[in-house]
């Protein structure tokens, strides 16, 4: 596969859209990036975030495992792991229902990379946390409530 050509195409495509938006005054230069899924990260409602990810309403699946503590003492650092046993898992997203912006992180997994990622997120308050997984073109999810005793988003 000619990876460099693909990247060049992607970059130029992204750039032209970006410059159009700049010209239209919709985006300030230097703030937006071409590839980052701004719509999904800006979404303040679960439906909107899922729609921006192209997920619609994912089906709950036992093959998706969300590993996280039941109670997080410090909402600023909540360890979260997602494992998908679904074949051809290509994307993993972590969303927190009651955060100001639902989407915390999104991972694109090329073939050969296992569907097992771990990271740490902030939570403002006790909330359901969703792991949304794209496998074979379809979306699946798992959710878990994490109780937060000390919020991580306040000042």
């Amino acid at each position, binding site marked *: 596969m000619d*990876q460099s050509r693909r990247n060049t195409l992607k970059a130029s495509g992204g750039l032209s859209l970006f410059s159009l938006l700049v010209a239209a005054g919709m985006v300030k230069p*230097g*703030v937006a*990036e071409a*590839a*980052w*899924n701004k719509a999904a*990260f800006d979404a303040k409602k679960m439906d909107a975030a899922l729609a921006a990810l192209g997920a619609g309403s994912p089906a709950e699946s036992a093959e998706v495992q969300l590993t996280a503590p039941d109670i997080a003492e410090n909402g*600023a*650092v*909540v*360890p979260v*792991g997602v494992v998908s046993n679904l074949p051809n898992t290509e994307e993993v997203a972590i969303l*927190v229902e009651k*955060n*100001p*912006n639902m*989407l*915390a*992180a*999104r*991972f*694109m*997994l*090329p073939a*050969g*990379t*296992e569907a*097992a*990622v*771990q*990271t*740490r*997120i*902030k*939570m403002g308050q006790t909330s359901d946390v969703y792991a949304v997984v794209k496998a074979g073109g379809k979306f699946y999810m798992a959710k878990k409530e994490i109780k937060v005793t000390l919020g*991580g*988003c*306040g*000042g």
Partner: protein
Amino acid sequence: MGNPMRIRAAEKDGVTEVKVLMNHEMETGQRKDSSGNLIPAHFISELTAKHGDKVVLQAEFGPSVSKNPFLSFKFKGGAKGDKVVVSWIDNKGDTRSDEATIG
């Protein structure tokens, strides 16, 4: 130029586990400073990990990833002595790239 990352990569039975600890403020844009002014958001937005020329992980972060983000993932095909390179860019355009040798 951002602060250096700590990267560990270990191969076992053909699977390489990579652990990355980034050094970044990850400011949410929701907090206020002592005089009540909003502190502008400053966070890593995109991350790419490569094994040789092959991309093994791409990630997009929002501001609700914790300060000094931690990330762990696993990929097949890595061998001891190979290099893993992790790069990120933040929402202010700052970038950082670090590498580790698979052990």
